[in-house]
């Protein structure tokens, strides 16, 4: 092994002829196994660690058993209904759904934010209510994303409500699928 920066030679002075000259020993230690071990442990910790700590998203749901009079009546003009369907499809309409479905529009998760913000800007705050209606094939992610949109847009009043059969039919018609057998 190469360079000889070794221990200071303690026996610096000349010894007698009978005394063996002390061999200089290299104090260099081969660090390679130590590095190996170090990185092995690092890998272990990297794999077992959870870096992103989960967050808590508060959700309050209304009491369904509350009497009807106690329920806050939503003004139709301030309502904005978002329908969620399979494969992240989003549909919406404002106010009440027209019988011919003319105000029923298709959208997606990117564009719906602009629509919600537009509605928020055009509606008095006390009237605004966003109604989220996921259908049977909407996934949990869609619902949470939509609830998240409510936080992002700072909508004070919103509700997750069961979808109506008429709306299911409209979604099916738009998606080109046949209505489910014995539709719910």
């Amino acid at each position: 092994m190469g360079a000889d920066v070794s221990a200071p030679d303690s026996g610096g002075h000349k010894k007698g002829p009978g005394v063996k000259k002390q061999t200089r020993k290299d104090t260099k230690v081969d660090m390679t196994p130590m590095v190996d071990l170090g990185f092995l442990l690092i890998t272990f910790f990297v794999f077992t660690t959870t870096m992103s700590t989960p967050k808590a998203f508060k959700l309050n749901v209304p009491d369904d058993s509350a009497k009807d009079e106690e329920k806050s009546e939503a003004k139709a003009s301030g309502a904005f209904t978002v329908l969620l369907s399979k494969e992240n499809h989003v549909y919406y309409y404002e106010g009440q759904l027209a019988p011919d479905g003319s105000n029923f529009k298709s959208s997606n998760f990117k564009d719906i934010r602009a629509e919600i913000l537009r509605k928020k800007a055009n509606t008095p705050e006390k009237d605004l209510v966003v109604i989220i209606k996921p259908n049977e094939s909407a996934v949990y992610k869609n619902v949470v994303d939509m609830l998240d949109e409510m936080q992002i847009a700072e909508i004070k009043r919103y509700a997750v409500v069961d979808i109506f059969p008429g709306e299911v039919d409209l979604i099916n018609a738009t998606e080109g699928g046949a209505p489910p057998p014995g539709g719910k």
Partner: protein
Amino acid sequence: MPKLKIARKSTWVDMTAFVDVAFLILSFFMLATKFKPPEVVKIENPKSVSSENQPEKDVFKVSFDKEGRVFVSFSSDQDGKEKAQLTAEVLSRQKGLGLTPAEISNFIKFSVGGIGVPVTQLKSFLNLTDDQYKSFKQPGIPVQDTLNNQLNDYLNALLTGTGGRKPENVMLNGDNGTTYPYFKNVLAAFKKNGIFSFKLITSLEGVPAGTPLYKKRKEQQTK
């Protein structure tokens, strides 16, 4: 021709600095690490802008995975254990399961990782050993139809056991891909037992620029 003499160079590399770095990173990970809690179900949480950290004390958690299997779990601290025990005792009494003390202590142990079996299978499930528990594929608590929503039974047992005192943190841990009806049924069971306020477990996502929430948070920061 004079032969060119190539100086022999040592191949020795000083590893000390390397070791220093390695152990620095190592100590960082050791201090920053928090071991993944033992969970029998793999769940991918959706994202949200919520920045509140997930509580760890006195937690009652309902999880559902992609296939719609529903699990209940309690935190491993004293409050959680107490509530798990009460739940098991009441459930045993209400449903006539006749759980032995050993089975109840197993309930407490398994409830940290998650329990997802119908009430009728609970007794045989609680006789599993730790290893069997890990490999056992639990069918999930049935929630599909409103008549046989057994999550209701679990919740009812919990609240009866505590005398109506709700756990401080009721968490809902759902998978991205679960279809809405399962979520609805879990909510229905919560509502039926008078739990109207709970927390969804999500992972952090940045607030999109230009939105009202973004502006509000920015104002708060500058204040």
